[in-house]
């Protein structure tokens, strides 16, 4: 029989709710979120931190859940796309993506929206250049970048109000 695999306990909050999870030290955050917590909004795509489809926020900062150990989130707050809306009220970035039809197939959208939300928290009124620079690590293979840019600009105005 193979030797028992190491296991550890981590306490963290996910979308505002506290969790104490039994995980393997080698567990990746994307797998913990999707398989252990059923939060499948976080998408695995390139798996090498380039595309941004797996973007989640840890203490407000975007990270690639595909290459981030769940161990690293111990004692921290993880936000996934499922936790962005407040009840029935969607986040201004989500509303702007709807209003501007800023998604086509939708696979990059959770990561796009979380990255944009983090950007607007850091820079409430970013220039077009600043948006393009911050979002350059989130790829849309439908190439709908113009709509995404418009949506983020609109959300920036909405958040200001």
């Amino acid at each position, binding site marked *: 029989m193979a030797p028992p695999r190491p296991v550890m306990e981590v306490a963290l909050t996910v979308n505002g709710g506290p969790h104490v999870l039994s995980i393997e030290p080698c567990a990746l955050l994307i797998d913990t979120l999707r398989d252990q917590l059923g939060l499948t909004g976080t998408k695995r795509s390139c*798996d090498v931190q380039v595309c941004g489809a797996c973007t989640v926020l840890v203490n407000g900062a975007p990270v690639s859940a595909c*290459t981030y150990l769940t161990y690293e989130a111990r004692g921290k707050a993880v936000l996934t796309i499922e936790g962005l809306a407040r009840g029935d009220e969607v986040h201004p970035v989500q509303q702007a993506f709807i209003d501007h039809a800023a998604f086509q197939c939708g696979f990059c959208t959770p990561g796009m929206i979380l990255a944009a939300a983090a950007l607007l928290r850091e820079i409430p009124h970013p220039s077009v250049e600043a948006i393009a*620079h911050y979002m350059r690590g989130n790829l849309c293979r439908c190439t709908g970048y113009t709509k995404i840019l418009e949506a983020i600009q609109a959300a920036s105005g909405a958040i200001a109000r």
Partner: protein
Amino acid sequence: MLRPFEIHQPASAAEASRLRGALGEEAAFYAGGTELLLVMKEGLLRYAHLIDLKTIGGLDGIGVDATTGALCLGALATHAAIEHSPVVAERFPLLAEVERSVANVRVKNVGTLGGNLCFAEPHADPGPLFLACEATVRLEGAAGARDLPIGQFFVDAYQTARAPEEVLTQIRVPRFGPHTRGVYLRFGWHERPALGVALALTLDPGHTQVADLRVAVGGVTLRPTRLRGVEDRARGRGLDEVLASLETVGGAAAGDVRPTSDLYGSAEYKGAMVKVFVRRAFLGAAARFNGSGG
């Protein structure tokens, strides 16, 4: 998917070093993980133990040496922390500028400067910049600490002079003098630079003579490399004279590096690009003498 491993949480660099000594090649130091976890996911490296250096306090500080004025960067400072550091903005804005263009926001939030240097990926931005700035690295082992010029730190692709049980704890960057300006140019179409050129130009107080020139390239060969021939051709000559003969000066790079072909370009192409970017970097540095510096 990662193969199983255990995580160790040392409280000091000495303890981390002792752990690595005891666990041997089954163990690796682990900082941000943006490089290490990638190769482990691919199965290219297999470790049964990761020694988490982030549990050692104080290795992510950014400060200034009161005596020498050198910028002291804790090896575990993330790219984002350096990009946004007020100390870096004041002391070495060129570094903040370079960190801004590293990878993407997610990698910058997690990846550390020390991890970047220790991984020694040939296509990386900080290496050539620090080489042109003549930075030093501090390596700490159970037996004590040593400082090494960064030119001796980089050995080959993915290889450094760090002993397996030594922890890179700090990078020290000497302050530019009042008559030195720096430029870093990166070129490429992927997240990593196809090539990077770092250049530090020092003029005489009258700003007419090239008192010193330091140029380093990354991504062209298997490790960041100084272009000594280029430097020698410019040093001691009039600024206008050098500006008028930049083709010749840049051409000296051919004697300094033998480019390697890889995914980012052929040796011939990289050789041609080095000349172009050395020229542009020199022009950029010279132009900074008319502005606010850098």
